[in-house]
């Protein structure tokens, strides 16, 4: 139907409560380890300078953590790496704060919370912390966010012949908004994608006419996905990357398309 995009996966990052990095999450995905019981409440996000880390909301810490893990695993310098940050809902807790404050006392809105509320706050903090002057973007496509963001990152990598960082993160909803955005758990993952395919894990991506059923997840992964389709789709791809043999996956991309993926770990 159209072009197949071919990419190597040079590095992977991941964070969720009880699995604070890719090796830990990989064990969970392979069924060899359980989620850690005494879990870290928040990502360390050591890549952010201390002052920024204090001001940064959970969504930014999560994105910075997984992005830094993926870059370290890939052995690439983030300073020249284009970055694509995807999220279904953005900084839900800040949206809750902003809307609550506007309903009560609009003139008391905090300037820091306001600039933290933009969907590209993770991209902003990340590029500032790493000195990245390449293009950075922030995107969403609701329940198609994972595949649409991956296609955007892959397109950028292939069109401009450059490795690209792709991160996808969602945080738990708070307040009245939680009834609309049913996300109960923070989850983030990042991939460094390289259009030079040699060596490591590989992805082949092609849009196909929409297939209805996204892949079913095991009960463990379903609990991790916590009602967030983007997290569920990310977990399905990470599980394929954690395995031994090549697999195919088809994830919803738009009203009329799915993204067909051949994944070779």
């Amino acid at each position, binding site marked *: 139907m159209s072009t197949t995009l071919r990419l190597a996966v040079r590095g992977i990052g991941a964070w969720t409560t009880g699995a604070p990095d890719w090796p830990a999450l990989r064990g969970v995905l392979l069924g060899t380890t359980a989620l850690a019981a005494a879990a870290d409440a928040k990502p360390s996000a050591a890549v952010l300078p201390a002052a920024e880390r204090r001001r940064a909301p959970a969504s930014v810490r999560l994105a910075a953590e997984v992005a830094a893990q993926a870059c370290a695993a890939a052995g690439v310098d983030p300073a020249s790496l284009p970055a694509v940050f995807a999220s279904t809902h953005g900084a839900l807790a800040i949206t809750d704060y902003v809307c609550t404050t506007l309903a009560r006392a609009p003139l008391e*809105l905090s300037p820091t919370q306001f600039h933290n509320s933009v*969907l*590209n706050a993770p991209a902003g903090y990340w*590029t*500032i912390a790493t000195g990245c002057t390449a293009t950075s*973007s922030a995107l969403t496509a609701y329940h198609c966010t994972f595949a649409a963001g991956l296609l955007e990152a892959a397109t950028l990598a292939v069109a401009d012949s450059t490795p690209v960082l792709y991160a996808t993160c969602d945080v738990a909803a708070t307040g009245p908004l939680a009834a*609309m955005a049913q996300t109960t758990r923070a989850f983030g993952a990042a991939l460094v994608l390289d259009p030079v395919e040699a060596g490591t894990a590989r992805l082949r991506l092609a849009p196909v006419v929409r297939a209805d059923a996204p892949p079913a997840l095991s009960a463990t992964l379903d609990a991790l996905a916590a009602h967030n389709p983007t997290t569920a789709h990310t977990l399905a791809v990470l599980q394929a990357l954690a395995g031994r043999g090549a697999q195919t996956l088809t994830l919803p991309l738009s009203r009329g398309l799915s993204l067909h993926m051949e994944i070779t770990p």
Partner: protein
Amino acid sequence: MPERIEPLAVTACSATSALGRGCAAQATALREARGGLRANDFSATPLECRIGRVAGLEAAPLPHALAAWECRNNRLAWLGLQPDGLLDAVERVIARHGATRVALVLGTSTASIGATEEAYRRLDHGRFPPELARPALHTPHSLTAFVAAATGIAGPTLTLSTACSSSAKVFASAERLLRLDLADAALVGGVDTLCGSVLFGFHSLQLIAPAACHPFDVDRDGISIGEAAAFAVLERVDAAPDAPRFVGYGESSDAYHMSTPDPEGRGAKAALQATLARAGLAPERVDYINLHGTATPKNDEVEAQLLARFPARTRASSTKGFTGHTLGAAGALEAVFALLALRDGVVPPNLGCRTPMPEAAPWLALAPEHRRLDVALSNSFGFGGNNACLAFARADAA
């Protein structure tokens, strides 16, 4: 530097802003130096400022079949899709290529957050009122999902939300999709609407001017916020050899500060250089630059430095004095203004500037200027140091 790209044809475009509905209303106001800002009559809590409000939105409900998407932002999107044969152009590319071969890439910073704000004002025992309990509305993708439903576009679909560069970057994403043959045509654009978040958010940052904004004025004192919808249909040049062309873009990050531009403007310069490289143009070929020109002291100071690389025959203006800063819609709105400048041979004036900053004065058009324009740029710089620059050219450019 990036390699030169094949230009794309802009086969339809439209804009709706405080200047009115459709390209004719925009072009007339720009040519007549007639601005659209008015006293803030939007926020329930008083805030002394001028706003660029689109008239009549309150009386323009969505068609019944689309009523589930009802909110101010989607109303403005729907209104913005009507003029200038835009929906006909979308129908034509769908008929020609198939709905899954048409991409939809839109930029927004507000999306329908205004509806979420309203739900919080009207909470019923801590819950959203039933008529606002529509989950797809309370997400940053609401605009694009609505436009997909309204147009039938079914190809690659994406919302870019990088604050004030959002709907400039959509042109770049669409170009890559067409270049890699992942789509044959794209509807791109941006829609942002007035809401409490942006009015009181920019107020909290002390960036809102008490009166109408004065871009590039020595006494500039902040932004005026506006709302707008702007769209363009992009196709390969062979589909419309005589249509104006999207010829280049550049994107970069400042890596400096969340809400203040890099004082040396390195990111803005990099975006500009990449744009000229992709377009294969020397700065001397640029006839008009639609500046980001927000009228904050810092933005305009940084952006004025960029002008020094252009000859004085290159004319420049910010159109924020006409429409206000339409944030996530500004990239697409000002892309349409650049296209109108090329079409009509009119440099829009930098409305609101009385005493121009000396470092910008040689390039700044303070009154409308009539002359042939072959190449126009549009700058968009956003929060988080997110920069984008676009280049357009007449099909018959020398």
